[in-house]
């Protein structure tokens, strides 16, 4: 069995929605049937084999080669299997994925891990705004699973995040952890302004003290035993966070404008 490869064979003028190309939907289909899968391309539908050269037979291991930012919804609703993306991808990567794993060897546009409920999403490049956030109109964002970003992330990372973990090796834009409901976000680099704006619960792990607005309160420096549990759970993850083992942190709590039970922990 070799991985089922979708190699992009033409420049895309419109956005291409590849949500039908997921392991559970392709299982037990022949290569011809897979090629006949209809995909939304702009406002029309086209066959998968019109845009991709398709080879391989293992529907549990998908590869998107020569991917570009025009391809949306890779790994949408993923329930099983593994997807590798070589190149950049568009929006809604791993949209509402539940299990399995996605690795992107490139950068990703906005709304990655939107509504994600489980599994592992690893982005080896940068990622746009609203990582792990809620779909517009939804009341809660990501509710499970693990997201690892090797590069930087945009604004509103973890907006309304409900559960799960986002670990970012690089920097994050403004409004990091805004309106966060629960879960864990770790940022090794710097964060922009208004960090934790409207944060209700949840944990934001940082390594440098950011500029904090007035409704985030200083609770002092503490040795927190739960951090040992947390870092133990990080071990084995392909993230620089796996190398950290400190349970001493400066604790800020907020946003007291919104219940104030969230915490920003600056590791010492």
């Amino acid at each position, binding site marked *: 069995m070799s991985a089922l490869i979708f190699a992009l064979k033409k420049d895309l003028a419109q956005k291409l929605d590849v949500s039908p190309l997921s392991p559970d939907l392709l299982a037990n289909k022949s290569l011809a049937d897979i090629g006949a899968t209809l995909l939304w391309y702009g406002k029309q539908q086209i066959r998968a084999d019109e845009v991709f050269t398709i080879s391989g037979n293992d529907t549990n291991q998908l590869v998107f080669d020569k991917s570009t930012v025009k391809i949306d919804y890779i790994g949408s609703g993923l329930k099983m299997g593994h997807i590798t993306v070589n190149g950049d991808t568009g929006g809604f990567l791993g949209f509402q994925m539940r299990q399995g794993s996605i690795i992107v060897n490139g950068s990703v546009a906005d709304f990655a891990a939107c509504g994600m409920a489980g599994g592992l999403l690893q982005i080896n490049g940068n990622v746009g705004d609203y990582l792990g956030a809620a779909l517009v109109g939804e009341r809660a964002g990501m509710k499970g699973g693990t997201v690892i970003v090797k590069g930087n992330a945009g604004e509103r990372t973890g907006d309304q995040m409900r559960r799960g973990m986002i670990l970012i090796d690089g920097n994050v834009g403004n409004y990091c952890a805004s309106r966060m409901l629960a879960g864990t976000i770790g940022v090794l680099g710097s964060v922009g302004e208004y960090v934790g704006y409207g944060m209700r619960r949840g944990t934001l792990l940082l390594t440098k003290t950011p500029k904090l607005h007035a409704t985030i309160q200083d609770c002092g420096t503490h040795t927190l035993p739960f951090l040992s549990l947390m870092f*133990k759970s990080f071990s084995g993850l392909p993230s620089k966070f796996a190398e950290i083992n400190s349970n001493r942190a400066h604790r800020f709590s907020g946003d007291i404008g919104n219940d104030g039970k969230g915490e920003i922990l600056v590791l010492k």
Partner: protein
Amino acid sequence: MIINGVQIDDTFAEAFNMRGTRVIITAQNHKWAYNAANAMTGFATSVIGCGVEAGIERELSQEETPDGRPGVAILMFAMGSSVLMKQLENRMGQTILTCPTAAAFSGIEGNERINLGKNLRFFGDGFQTSKQFGGKRYWRVPVMDGEFITEETTGMVRAVGGGNFLVLATSQPQALAACEAAIEAMKKIPNVIMPFPGGVVRSGSKVGSKYKSMFASTNDAFCPTLKGLTKTQLSDDIESVMEIVIDGLTDADIRKATYVGIKAACALGAENGIKRISAGNYGGKLGQFQFHLRDIMNDKSLSGESA
């Protein structure tokens, strides 16, 4: 059957179905882990008066605990799930929540989950927070020494309680010495506890009493001072009898502990006053398990593993 001059009676211990759980207690160091564990397993010798039977199973190194701190594993057994749940929560609240630096974690998997810190979180008065790592939920409750950490639930399994054997000796110090030797050996066996003080019980009981309010009373047949008064089980040379009660996660664990304990007691031999090994039962009518002493002592698989 005679081992080192000690007679092994042709009888059996009668044991019961129980519900059991294991909790891992960690703290800043072993001293405080033991302080917490000793309090949690205190007054837990017999289900009759204490609700649960509990004891320290073994010490855990830093590498063996969830939070990388020194700890101990405790086992707790009860006759039913509801009693076990109630006792566990009560004891957690009064002994682990209160003990400086102590934390509690699930020590056993199992489809049936019972509350460990699930309701203790409300002590946090709204300041408590939960975290999920590796599919397990933990609670962080702010307390005066920092934060109290506890896993939300622990596993509950079907277990066996009431395995036992009796050591019959020519004097009280000799009976106790044999029991101490047995307990030291049995402590090395995983999945079992000996819930009585120091692992040994001197007040073995029989069912019933002349008093209406009593369900059980002293086992007069094994009381050395009553030899001339009752239908005694003791010969002239027996002056003291002590019992070791064993609770375990499976009947195989109890068989193993029984074997190791009797072997250690018999190692002192007849020359040290150890005369007989017997066991307590109710005629085989009440318990779901029977541990026949001679069968256990002849079991080659047990001797192989303990070597």
